[in-house]
C-alpha cells in the first residue's frame, strides 16, 4: 500500500527538507513507495485551493505528516494544527521542531526588542511602523511543536542525518516505528578518553586541538579532555548516520549539541554544568553560558530576561 505523506516547514531553514533530498538513490526508492500530497518545498499544492479562493486552510489527509521547524507565528500555528487534523501520525523532524533549535534563541528577548534591532541596523531606513499587512503576527515566543500539537515521533538533528531519515521512513512504510537511539554523542565517539581529573578549566575554541591529521579519529584525545568545551556528554547521538562517528568530531571540532538533549526533556545547560562539576572542571570563567542552550530554547528553557 502506498503511504501518503504531507510535509511542512515552519520556523525553519529548509535544511531538514534538503537532508531528505540528500538520501541520494534511496530517495527514488522511497518515492516508489510513498505519495506526497503536500510539500511546499517541492510541490504546488496550495493552502486555500489551487486558485486561492477557499476561506479555510486545507491540508489533504495523509497517513504521515512530517513537520520541520518550531512555531513562532500565527501561520505556523494554523498550519501545524491543520497538519495534525489531516495526518494520522505526526513526525517532528529536526531540532527546531523537537526543541526549538537555533531560532528559539529569540526566547531570551521580547518581540519588541527583536523588531527594534532588526529594523534599526546600520543599513536600515528606520520605518515609522513595523510590517503588519499580510504577514502573520508573531507569537510571544518560539515553541517546540509538542507545546502546541500532539507529536507521535521526534527525530531531532540539525539536520538529522540522511541515513537516519531513510531508515525511519522505511520502517514507517513497512508498518513499523523508527528506532531513534537514546545514546549520547560520547557513547559513540571514538576519541581517546583517559578519565577525569586532568583538565581544570575550559578554553574557547580559538586554536586547533592536538591531533595528527593523517591519523584516524580514534588516535585523537577527547576534545573535552583537551580542555575544549564539547557538548558530547549531554547530546543525543545519531548525527553520524550509519557510520556512527559524530560529524563535528570528524571535522576535529567540538560538538555543540545540535541533536538536542540525550533525554528528551533534559536541560543541556544544567546537565553540562553538572557533568563539568563532577569532573572537577571549572566553568565560572566562561564568558557566556546561554549558548549551551542554543538548540533547546523552547519548553521554557530559555526565558526573556526582562520578565
Amino acid at each position: 500500500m502506498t503511504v501518503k505523506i504531507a510535509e511542512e516547514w515552519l520556523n525553519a531553514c529548509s535544511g531538514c527538507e534538503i537532508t531528505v533530498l540528500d538520501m541520494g538513490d534511496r530517495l527514488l526508492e522511497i518515492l516508489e513507495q510513498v505519495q506526497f500530497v503536500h510539500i511546499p518545498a517541492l510541490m504546488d499544492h496550495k493552502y486555500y485551493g489551487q486558485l486561492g479562493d477557499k476561506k479555510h486552510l486545507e491540508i489533504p489527509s495523509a497517513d504521515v505528516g512530517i513537520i520541520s521547524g518550531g512555531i513562532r507565528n500565527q501561520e505556523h500555528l494554523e498550519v501545524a494544527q491543520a497538519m495534525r487534523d489531516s495526518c494520522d501520525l505526526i513526525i517532528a523532524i529536526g531540532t527546531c521542531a523537537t526543541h526549538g533549535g537555533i531560532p528559539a534563541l529569540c526566547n531570551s528577548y521580547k518581540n519588541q526588542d527583536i523588531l527594534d534591532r532588526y529594523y534599526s541596523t546600520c543599513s536600515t531606513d528606520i520605518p515609522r511602523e513595523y510590517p503588519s499587512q499580510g504577514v502573520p503576527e508573531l507569537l510571544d515566543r518560539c515553541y517546540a511543536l509538542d507545546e502546541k500539537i500532539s507529536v507521535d515521533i521526534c527525530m531531532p538533528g540539525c539536520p538529522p542525518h540522511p541515513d537516519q531519515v531513510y531508515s525511519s521512513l522505511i520502517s514507517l512504510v513497512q508498518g513499523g516505528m523508527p528506532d531513534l537511539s537514546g545514546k549520547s554523542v560520547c557513547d559513540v565517539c571514538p576519541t581517546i578518553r583517559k578519565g577525569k581529573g586532568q583538565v581544570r578549566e575550559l578554553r574557547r575554541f580559538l586554536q586547533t586541538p592536538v591531533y595528527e591529521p593523517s591519523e584516524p579519529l580514534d588516535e585523537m584525545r577527547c576534545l573535552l579532555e583537551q580542555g575544549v568545551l564539547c557538548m558530547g556528554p549531554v547530546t543525543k547521538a545519531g548525527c553520524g548516520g550509519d557510520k556512527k562517528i559524530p560529524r563535528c568530531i570528524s571535522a576535529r571540532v567540538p560538538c555543540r549539541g545540535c541533536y538536542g538533549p540525550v533525554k528528551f526533556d533534559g536541560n543541556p545547560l544544567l546537565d553540562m554544568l553538572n557533568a563539568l562539576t563532577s569532573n572537577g572542571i571549572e566553568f565560572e570563567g566562561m564568558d557566556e553560558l546561554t549558548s549551551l542552550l542554543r538548540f533547546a530554547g523552547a519548553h521554557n528553557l530559555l526565558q526573556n530576561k526582562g520578565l
Partner: protein
Amino acid sequence: MTQTINISPLTRIEGHASIDINLDDYGEVQDSRVNIMSLRGFEKFVEGKPAEELPRIVNRICGICPWHHHLASNKAVDACFGAQVPGTGQKLRELMHTISHAEDKLLHFFFLAAADFVIGPGSDYEVRNVIGIAKSNPELAKKVVKMRSKAKMLMENFAGKAIHPVAGVTGGFAKPLQEEERKQMLSEMRELLDFALYTMDFAKNEVFPQYMDTIESLGVIKTGFIGTVNNQGAMNLYDGNIRLMKPDGSFSEFSPQDYTDYISEHVEPYSYGKMPYAKAWGEGFSLDRNDPKGIYRSNCLARMNVVDSIPTPKANAELQEFRERFGRPAQATLLYHWARLIEEVYACERAIEILQDPEITKEDVRSQVEPKAGRGVGCVEAPRGTLIHDYSTDENGLITGANMIVGTTHNLAPINMSVDQAAKSLIQEGHVDETILNQIEMAVRAYDP
C-alpha cells in the same frame, strides 16, 4: 476593488512567502504584493555570544546555503579579531564554498524549477514537480539525484557536516586535506563538471528553445545589478570587491567593508523582509516599474552582468555566447536559469583548479587567535547574491552588534516588480486560472528566493 487573489504558500522556492494580487472593478490588476512571512531575529539573538561561535549559529539562517553564511561569518569574525588566515586555510574555505555552489544550482534547476519547463507550466500540479520528472524521465532523475548527492557527500566526508557546516573556524579551517582525499575529490569533481556541461547543453538544446517567447516576456523588468569581482574584474564567488551596476551598464566598485555607503534597506508594511536599494545612486527607493529608483538585482544573472569575464575557460565561453545573444546587462528575468547553469560550470571548473593547487594539502590551515574588540565585515557571493555579515565585538570577543544582508533580500524589491509585470500582463478582465497563477510564480522562481 472587487477581488484579492492570494497565492499561498509560494511553492518550489526556498523561503516562506505569499502573493496578494488585487483586481479592480473591471477585473484588471490594480496592484500586487509579495509578502515575506518569516522573521527570526538573528541580528538580536547573536548579541552577547562569543564571536567565534557565530559561524555555527548563523549558518541556520539558511539550510540550502549554510556554507555561505558560515564562511561570510568566519570572515567577519576574523576581521573583528584581526586573524590572519593561512593561504591553505583560505583555499579550503573557497573549495567548500565553490562545491556548495555547484550542488545548490543542481538543486534549484532540477528539483525546483525544471518541472515548469520539462513537464510544462500549465500541467497538473500533482505531476508538475521533481517527482513527476522522476516518473517521466527516470534515467535523468537517477543521474541528477546521484550527482547532487555526490557533491553533498564529498563535503560531508571531508568537512564533517555538509548542512550547517562546522569546518570553517576563526583563523582558518579545522583540518587539512589529505592527499588521498584530494585525489578522490578531484575525480568526483571531474564527474560533476561533465554533468554540468551535459546540463548546459541539455538546457540550451532541449529546454530553453521551446520557451524563448516566455523568457523574453515573463516578469521582465529593467534594473541595476550587484555582484563580486576579483582584482581583474572577473568572477570570483568567494572573495573580492563588490560591483554595483546601474541599469545602463555603468558601474562603481567598492570594498565590502564600505557597503553602508552604497546600500540601504527599505521597509514596506507588507513584508518582514527588508528591501536593499542603491543608496549611492541618490535617487531614493521606488518599485514603480515605469520609473524604478534604487532597484538592482543579485544572484547569478546579476553576476553574469557585472563581471568582465569568467576566469575558467568553459564557463567563460558560455558567458561570451550568453552575452552575444542577450547583451550586457541582460534584463530578462527567466535568464536567471540560463545564468545559473553557466555558474554551475564555473563552480565545477574552479573547484578542480583549487584541487590542483600544490598548496591545497599543506598542513598550515589555521592561525591561533585571541578575542578582542573590533568590527569586521565578511562578504561572499552566496548562490542567491552578495552576502554581507557585519559584526562588532567587545574586548572579550563577545558580539555587541550584528547586521546581515542576505543574498535573496537584494531581490525582494525586483521580485515584487516582476510579479507586478507578470500579473498585469497575464490577468485580464478578471480571468485567472492555475496556469496563469503558476506562470506568475515562475517569475518569482527564476530568482530562486
